[in-house]
Structure formats: C-alpha cells, structure tokens
C-alpha cells in the first residue's frame, strides 16, 4: 500500500503488557513500603516510585520515547516550569522563620 511508509512505529503488545506488570508491581511496592516507618524517607521513596511509574507511562504508553525531539523538549519544559512554581514558592515558605526581630 502506498501509505506504508507513513505508518508510525508500532510497539509489540508484549511491551505494553510488560510495562503494565512493572506498574502493578511498583504500586504494590509503594503500598508495602508505606507501612514501614522510615520517617522522612517515606515521602522520598513514595515520590521516587511514583516518578518511575510516571516515566514509564509517559515514555511507553504515551510513546514519548518514540516521539520527535520537539515533543520531548516540550514535556521537559513543562516539568521544569512546574518545578519552578513549586521551588520558588517554597523559597518564601522555607525562609519565613529565618529572620527574627530580636535585638541581641
């Protein structure tokens, strides 16, 4: 067919199923780990696992791995700006208690 060359990269179904399996496993893992008291590391671990899951969904389910450079840059820029919103707002909240009016 003349349109053959226009067809996009098709992933084998087994890849999708494998990613699904990893995601299910990671979900179980994050629940399991949440029962262990790790203090400040709980949130770190939870977010790391969530980010791994998110990355897998974005790269493979959403085909970003196989997409154009432009699309990849677009996603990275978005994440970067979200990070800016969170980080710069926190510069205020993190430092509010630093300066006191006490005269020594």
């Amino acid at each position, binding site marked *: 067919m003349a349109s053959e060359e226009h067809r996009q990269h098709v992933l084998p179904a087994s890849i999708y199923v494998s990613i699904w399996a990893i995601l299910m496993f990671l979900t179980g893992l994050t629940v399991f780990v949440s029962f262990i008291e790790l203090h400040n590391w709980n949130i770190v671990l939870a977010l790391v696992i969530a980010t791994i899951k998110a990355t897998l969904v974005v790269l493979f389910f959403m085909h970003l791995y196989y997409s154009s450079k432009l699309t990849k840059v677009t996603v990275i820029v*978005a994440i970067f700006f979200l990070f800016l919103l969170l980080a*710069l*707002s926190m510069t205020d909240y993190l*430092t*509010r208690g630093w*300066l006191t009016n006490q005269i020594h």
Partner: protein
Amino acid sequence: MATAVQTVERETYLNNGYSLKSWLLTRDHKRIAILYLISITGMFFIGGFFAMLIRLELLTPAGDLVSSDTYNKLFSMHGISMVFFFLIPSVPAVLGNFVIPLMVGAKDLAFPRLNLASWYIYIIGALFALVSMVMGGVDTGWTFYTPFSTTYSNTHVVGTALGVFIAGFSSIFTGLNFIVTIHRMRAPGMTWTRLPLFCWSNYAASIIMVLGTPVIAITILLVALERLFHIGVFNPALGGDPLLFQHLFWFYSHPAVYIMILPGMGVISEIVTCFSRKRVFGYEFVALASIAIAVLGFLVWAHHMFVAGISVYAALVFSLLSYLVAIPSAVKVFNWTATLYRGSIRYDTPMLYAFGFIGLFTIGGLTGVFLASLGVDVHVTDTYFVVAHFHYVMVGGMVLAYMAGLHFWWPKMTGKMYPEGWAKLSALLVFVGFNLTFFPQFILGYMGMPRRYHAYPPEFQVLNVLSTAGASVLAMGYVLPMIYFLWSLRYGEDAGPNPWNAVGLEWMTPSPPPTHNFDETPVVTWEAYDYEHQPEEEVSVGH
C-alpha cells in the same frame, strides 16, 4: 465610468460569503481576527468608560462623585476589562491571527476550528464579566486578593472570576495554535532565522500563555470554591495563607504582562525595519531576547509581594531576578535604535507610534527597575508611582504598539488606506494626552498619594487635574481612529498589495487577501528584512 466589459470582483476573504453564518461559523483566521477586532474594541471602550469615571472623581480631593465602595468597583472593573479582555488578546488575537499564517506562508493556522472556538470562549467569558458588571461588578481590584475576595466582599466575585477563567482558555488555545503553527506550518525555505520577528515575539508570548494561564485558572477556581463552599484554603481564620493566593495569582499575572508586551514588541520590530528600510540590527539577539523575556518573566512574580509578608530572603532572590529580566528588553531597545541609525526613515503613522513606543516603553521599563529595588519599593509600593509605571508600559508601550500595528496592517486587512493626516493628528493626541495623564502620576506617587483611593490630600489636586486633562486628550486620540478607520472602509484609497513597500510574505498577497492566502505555496529564498534588495519605490497611496 461605465464600460461595456464587466470585471469580475476578485475573491477575497471579505466577500467570500456575506451571511452572518459565514462569519459566525468561519474557520478563516482572517475573519476570526476581524471578529476579535470588533469584540476587543468594545471591551476597550468599556474599560475606558470606567477610566473616565475614575479620572472625573479624582478631579477634586474630596470623594464626592461616587462613594468609596463604588470607586472600588470602578478601578476593579477598569483593570479587569483592560487586562483580561483587551490587553492580553489584542495583538495576538487580532494582528497575530491575521498576519502569522501569512507571514509563515501557510493557508491557515494549524487548528482553524480551535481558533474559532477561542473567539467564542472569549465572548462567553466577556459576557460573564459584563453581566456581573451590570449587576454591580466587583470591588476587589483586578487582583482579587484574599481573604477579601473570598470571604468579605459582598460583590459578584464568582461571576466575574468565572468570566476571567473562561477567557483564560481562549488565550491558552490561541497560544497553543500559534506555537504549533510556527513549528509545523512554515512554508518551504522559511527557516527559523528567516522568520519575521513578529513571529518570534508571538511565539514567546504563546509559550507564556500555555504555561502560565492554567495556573491562574486553578487559582480562580479555588477562589470560587472558597467563596461558595468556604473551604478556607486562603482564609487565615481557617488556617489558610492569603499569600499563597498571591503566589499563585502572580505566577501567571506577572508573565501575563509579557504576554501583553511581547507581541507589541514584535510589531515594533516589523515597523522599525520597514520605515527605516534596513535589516534589523542583531536579528538573533532580538529573537533570543524574546525567548529570554518569556523565560525570565516566570522567575520574578514575587516582586508584587515585597511588602505583603514574604520572607526577606525570598524578596532578595526575586529582586535580583527582576533586575535580570530588564536586560533582554533593553537589548531590544538598543537593537531598534541601532536599526534606525543610518536608516532611510519615513515618518508615516505606524512609525510615529513606534517612536512613541520606544521612548515611553523605556521610561516605563526603567521605572520598573526602580520598583525592583527593595528599598525604593517600600516607599512607592501601592502609590501612584506603580500606577504610572504600569500605564507607561501598558499604554505607552502596548497600546501604542497595537495602534502602530493596526495602522501598518490596516491596508492589508481591508484593502483601504486610512487618511494619513488625521492619523498623524491622532498619534500626536495620544502621545501628548498620554504623557499629560501619566507623568504627573509618577510625581504624585513619589510624594505619597496612594492608589485605589477616591479621596486625597488637597496638595495633590493640581497634578490630578493635569492628569484628568491629559486623559481627555488621550480619549480623543482613541476616538478619532475609530471614526477614520470606519470612514476608510467606504471612502479610503485602494491600498494595493504593498503600500509600504515592505518585505514579508504577507505583502506578497493581494489586499485584502483571498481566503486561501496564497495561490501557490511560496518558497522562501530570502532573509528576513531583506530591504537591501527591495527596490525603493515612491509610495503612491495615502499621501
């Protein structure tokens, strides 16, 4: 002069269907631009009406024209109409919509139906805001600060805020459309470095629209939820932080001012090159400066919060970043000036507005740097100094750029020339009126007159009277173009495809262009602003 042969009227986007349906269901970016033109002009005069009432009240020191509650509503609705319903859409939705597909050599924007949807969404948002205004409006300021807007105000906050929320999506979709168009719809040979700077500026502004607007959308949603369900996210009585509202609000609203000014700067780049018949000085620098403004613009928002209660360390960070954002703007001003140097300058109306822009934007921008300094800001924040600063950039900069662009591309859009004499007079009235209105406000602010007050100490009266006098002159400068533009539609001289002898794909189509823009897809082989190879002909229309 009757002849035996009847000439067939050339098909243009204007005569391609006369019915209301052909306009209201159009997918043609040019028709959508005209729809926007009509709508935002309406909102501009509504905002101007509120401004008139404000300036009338401020003629006398006593608050005698309206009550303080009403005055609060006046400046709130002036701000909301002007910022969200005029300034933000103006250059992109009117001039950008019309010209960008032509400039890149495309038949339309990437998503024509989304473009039409953008306009309808804008109209719905405007209706929400207008109905709320008619029912009494809001008195929170265009900034909707909490907890006043969420808990204590007795005005139509939710309705107005919803209008802004909805209009925000119009802006998002326009920006999305522009980004995709500029990336994917350029004609063969139209490389990034051959793009007119108007495209670069709108591209940068579109990035801001796409990244920033959703944040104010969610913020407005939270305000509405708090007002309706008392959720308390911004209410200190319930443990919330009003400053969180301000962080989220200004995260968008500061970059929003760059959404407004960047397309205006793009217009200036087009006009300065055409009317000095020179390549722009430092094309890459101007292009990259647009992107730099867009990115740096996201890093400075808390300079609106220096005295609100943020930590002093955060204030230091944001102050430093605010100084940085002035640099790319300055680069542009230097480059335009260098473009003018040794150019063959023509003083047509668009160029007069461009000159006005360069001077007034510089003053406005520099006073912004004053405000970025923490010590100075403590003295002048919430005074008329700030009001003067932002009107210098918004009106002296942005509105003048919009007028410049409107005059520059009017012949392309309508096929008619406006009357040059009247246009020059209007430009003069705008320039004189503007400075008379707003320069005294710098002094007033420095002397301590607070903003958003309808009464003031008697020693401030002289400057206030000057300001109101200036506003009357400025108003005339706005009304005249309305009249002569409409007049030109019927009686203006035929413009021809390129009355300014400008370089650019949009000037290579007839005026007005046919619906499909180009009979054949153009292939671009020349650099941007290739004025060296453009023969300088005697301009024969409009003089």
